[in-house]
């Protein structure tokens, strides 16, 4: 009739202010954990977004390359050997570099990521680029990433209204012919897409025979790993052949090792967990301490230790429920705010929601386990 759970609810809800404070502690913890882990995931996803956009089955990189954002070049002639394999259908090249984009409105320069790809067959997932394939072949014709930061000025809007915009990049006058929506990352504030020939015009100091990335499309049914091993012999020591998955894994590994994303945001989430733990523990502990005579009385009257322990654990579980859902909603709001502010996509995943919910239960459960030790010391003989 009066389950320990019901008593737990009575005890928690009796003092509404205390309940609100306790729940608020959990809310903050849940929100911090969700937001920190969300940003961590978002930063990670954005950083490997370029690698994920590669649709080629195999890629060729320099053996010195650790990440494609700071790639070392290798001789383009190596790529010409690869076509001799029966499994290779197409070999493409890709160039990447950091340029300086001069905002035509305030005349200030901002760094921009520049991609040189074959617009006819980019072997990258760049939706919309095919419409401009022919235009991009023309000299100094460039596509702008509509999702670039505002620091470049209202380029997207201008293009929509006026069609084209002449800008200065790397001290060279180019024409933006339109924009496509690709997205930026912590490595780049904005993107420009152009043909390899235009890319070389943009970077006159580069070795004309060097390429950043080779892209290989295989025939249907070819085993990428087998072909990779075969092609590795063709390029020898001068380049490395990777499967698409290897490229993505290498990028993730690079971010993990070189950018303190895991540490910073993992730390943030851990602090959230700790805050929640301390708040819930404090509340449960004072509840237990304040009710020691009553608990001892219940024991004297024949209530078991287990009944009282379940009562404390139930309070912890109730708090985790009461805290999680508002925390979850707040986190969704903050994701939206962050998405707008940082202009990177942050989204909630089922896995993260479930994971943080589990963490919340663990957090409250641990607090209960620590508080419970106090309940055990309630000695019924002391009531007299």
């Amino acid at each position, binding site marked *: 009739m009066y389950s320990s759970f019901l008593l737990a609810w009575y005890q928690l809800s009796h003092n509404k202010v205390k309940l609100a404070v306790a729940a608020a502690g959990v809310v903050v913890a849940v929100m911090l954990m969700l937001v920190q882990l969300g940003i961590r995931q978002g930063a990670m996803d954005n950083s490997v977004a370029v690698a994920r956009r590669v649709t080629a089955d195999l890629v060729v990189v320099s053996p010195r390359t650790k990440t494609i954002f700071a790639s070392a070049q290798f001789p383009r002639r190596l790529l010409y050997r690869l076509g001799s394999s029966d499994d290779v259908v197409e070999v493409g090249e890709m160039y990447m570099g950091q340029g300086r984009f001069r905002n035509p409105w305030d005349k200030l320069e901002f760094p921009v990521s520049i991609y040189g790809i074959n617009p006819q067959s980019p072997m990258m997932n760049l939706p919309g680029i095919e419409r401009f394939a022919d235009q991009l072949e023309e000299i100094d014709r460039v596509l702008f990433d509509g999702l670039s930061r505002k620091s470049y000025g209202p380029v997207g809007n201008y293009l929509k209204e006026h069609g084209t915009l002449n800008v200065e990049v790397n001290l060279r006058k180019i024409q933006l012919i339109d924009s496509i929506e690709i997205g930026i990352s912590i490595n780049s504030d904005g993107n420009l897409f152009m043909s390899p020939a235009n890319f070389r015009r943009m970077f006159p100091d580069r070795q004309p025979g060097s390429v950043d990335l080779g892209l290989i499309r295989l025939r249907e049914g070819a085993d990428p790993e087998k072909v990779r091993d075969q092609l590795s012999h063709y390029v020898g020591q001068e380049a490395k052949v990777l499967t698409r998955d290897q490229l993505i894994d290498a990028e993730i590994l690079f971010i993990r090792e070189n950018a303190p994303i895991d540490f910073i945001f993992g730390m943030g989430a851990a602090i959230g967990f700790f805050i929640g733990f301390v708040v819930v523990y404090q509340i449960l502990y004072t509840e237990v301490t304040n009710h020691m005579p009553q608990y001892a009385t219940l024991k004297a009257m*024949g209530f078991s230790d287990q009944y009282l322990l379940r009562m404390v654990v139930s309070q912890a579980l109730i708090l985790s429920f009461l805290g999680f859902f508002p925390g979850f909603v707040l986190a969704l709001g903050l994701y939206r705010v962050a998405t707008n502010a940082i202009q990177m996509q942050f989204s909630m995943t089922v896995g993260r929601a479930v994971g943080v919910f589990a963490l919340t239960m663990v957090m409250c459960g641990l607090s209960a386990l620590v508080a419970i030790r106090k309940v055990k010391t309630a000695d019924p003989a002391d009531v*007299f």
Partner: protein
Amino acid sequence: MTVASSELPVISSRHINFSFGEGDLKKQVLFDVTLEVAAGEIVLLTGPSGSGKTTLLTLIGALRKVREGELEVLSRSLHTATLHDLVDVRREIGFIFQQHNLLPFMTARQNVELMFQLHPEVSHSEASRLTVELLTSVGLSDRLDYYPARLSGGQKQRVAVARALVTSPKLILADEPTAALDSHSGRDVVTLLQELARDRNCPILMVTHDPRILDIADRIINMEDGRIQAVA
């Protein structure tokens, strides 16, 4: 109640010794305590503080373990009982303490009804009927849904009396139930307790200092320095 069962003592202790502490700090508080309480009897245990009354009460209430001597309460041998047995015995005893110790987050009705959690054999409706009945007989029919904070000291102690009696215990143990009350409400509570216990033929063992309530006793046991002095 049959004659045979009423003849069997509810409490029977033989040669109980009890000490606190170990080694050099060991202090014996009960010496060779032998006492019997029969069914339906109201026995008061008096004596100066430190005389061991309360310790004796905690032994009888199965709140401490008997280490020396024999103690039978409600036909169970507490000197051989396990902790689990002790908890079982407690469920058949009604306790009234110096402090009411009501759960502040539950109403008078809920505090009393809570006791049926230990007696799942009683149906929900029967439990609430008995609760209201008993709270009415202690004069709190208009305070059923009050939280303890809104009750006076005497009213709280009456709720505690109702809580101790509601599951029809076979023995009531009370430790200075009037100590925290003024003389008038103290007297009320004890009179109520006496009447209700008489109705149910339920024996009471009560520790008290309060000379004003000695008249309710069938028998008064005086303790001093851990020994039973005289039986009046």
